[in-house]
């Protein structure tokens, strides 16, 4: 068994060892160093950076738990937005499909930096979004989106959705249409056939998308940096600030170690759940 698997896994694992594991050793080591006088790094062996974060409820609630919540929320909304789109695209072909794909990918292609232009115009106090909502009588006072967590979530959804569409599409397309027909035949309407057949069979793609987007959201720093304000203490942004604005590499490293562990735990949880529910049944072994 290992004879067949090892050659397959070794290129990726080797690359990870060389270019992730070794560099991360440095990060790990740095997390025990000290920042002296807020300016320069002193070699040390202290747990200070960890205790500073982990014993401070404010950090735990407003940074860690906050990031997890926002990441989960944005990921969930992305999934809800992406699924119908993927379903629809899977049914199209030719030019229509290409156009839809292009539209889906466009936000990614342009990149966040420039898109923020458009979003400012939409989000600002008297911007399009507020004008529209007020015109539609959803609310009557302008609501703050820009430099606010609402805007951050909307943007995370905006960026996450195309990733999920992409990773779902292939799984949905490969579902044998006979399987849906068979379900319809035993009395499932479209909706039931979708829930019982298409959805479970699309879970590999969904899971892939979920993991990717969750991780992206959890570690996000560019979106909170540009759309959020000082209150938006997403952990990715905090790390970025500590490392690059405050020069506090030791603390940033410690935060990274914490973040990687939390993220790994969450993903392990997700994969255990997904595996239990469905993935293990789809694994192609003969």
């Amino acid at each position, binding site marked *: 068994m290992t004879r067949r698997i090892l050659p397959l896994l070794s290129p990726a694992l080797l690359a990870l060892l060389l270019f992730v594991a070794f560099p991360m050793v440095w990060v790990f080591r740095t997390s025990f160093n000290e*920042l*002296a*006088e*807020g*300016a*320069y*790094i002193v070699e040390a062996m202290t747990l200070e950076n960890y205790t500073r974060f982990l014993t401070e409820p*404010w950090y735990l609630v*407003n940074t860690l738990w906050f990031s997890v919540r926002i990441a989960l929320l944005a990921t969930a909304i992305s999934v809800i937005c992406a699924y119908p789109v993927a379903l629809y695209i899977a049914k199209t072909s030719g030019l229509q499909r290409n156009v839809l794909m292009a539209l889906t990918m466009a936000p990614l292609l342009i990149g966040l930096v420039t898109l*923020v232009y458009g979003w*400012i115009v939409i989000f*600002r*106090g*008297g911007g399009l979004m507020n004008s529209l909502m007020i015109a539609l009588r959803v609310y009557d006072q302008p609501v*703050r989106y*820009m*430099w*606010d967590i609402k805007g951050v979530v909307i943007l995370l959804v905006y960026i996450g959705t195309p990733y999920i569409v992409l990773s779902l599409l292939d799984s949905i397309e490969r579902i044998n249409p006979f399987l849906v027909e068979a379900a319809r035949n035993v009395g499932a309407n479209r909706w039931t056939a979708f829930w019982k057949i298409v959805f479970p069979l699309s879970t590999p793609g969904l899971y892939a998308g979920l993991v990717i987007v969750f991780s992206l959201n959890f570690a996000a720093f560019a979106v909170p*940096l*540009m759309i959020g*304000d*000082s*209150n938006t*203490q997403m952990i990715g942004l905090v790390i970025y*600030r*500590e*490392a*690059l*604005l*405050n*020069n*506090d590499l030791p*603390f940033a490293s410690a935060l990274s170690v914490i973040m990687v562990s939390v993220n790994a735990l969450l993903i392990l949880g997700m994969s255990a759940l997904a595996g239990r529910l469905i993935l293990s049944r789809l694994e192609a072994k003969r």
Partner: protein
Amino acid sequence: EDCALRVTTWGGSYQATYQAVAQKFEEEHNCRIEWVVGASPDHLIKARLGQVDVVTNTLLNSIAGEKEGLWQKLDPAKIPNMANLYPNAVHSPYTVFANVGDYVLAYNKDTVTTVPATWDELWKPEYKNRVVIYGIDHIPTLSLTVLQAEKNGGSIDNVEPGLDRMAELIKSGNLIGSLDVESQMVSLFETGDAWLGMLATGRMKELLSKGVTNVSFVRPEEGTFPLITSVNIHKDAKNPAMAAAFVNYILSSEVQVAFATRNLYAPTVKNAEIPDDFEFRDLLVLNDAFGRLYLPDQEKITANKAGWQQQLNQKAMR
């Protein structure tokens, strides 16, 4: 032989000015300049790794680098132009200021009818959701905090009153945001969303040159917060002589004037002559304006800002 000098710069217009003036240097010294473009922190990191020769820095970085022993002393013998520096433009034997801008109080003339005279204006209730300031870990905001501490019975060593004031500002709902991206502040003034706020002079110029006529600026009585570009030579510079020559070149009146007129970064040398007809002359921190810069002890700020931020976060959110 192949001579290359690695110089850090910020991208965009700063780099553009640098490149424009550097051509002459390259020809004269027969040495190519490799621009190491990046955000301020990159400059420090690259310096730590010995990837650069001349470092264009923020003052904060220069101080950190000094503590870590990254720089070599600037030798006035090799950098004759150092003689022309204003006295307060020499931070230490390692660090001098290359140029200086400041953060002024910008306001919308249509909505702010009386010219504001003090930074305290930002707290006024009528400006709900109309004020912009820089993010709380940026120098101007930190300086404002210290300023407020001093005005409210504290000092840089007892910054609590300042933090309370800042928390008050945050909770007042006046702030549209405390932003990390400067260019967004410009657009807020442009669209009329922001009525009042801090703005770097360089951004102010941008606004004006875009034809925005209803935004003006004032230097409040407490003084303005400086935006300092410092310069250092790396201790392991490959070619120290060439590095010194380049620093000397930066301090030449020619380059100083170029940065002043193109980027609104005021000269730090006395002999730089700004043309009288220069359109944005008021925006430059010239001669005596230097003295009015509010420049609290940068080292203390650096040492304490992490703690301050955390305190402020807690005060503002609870």
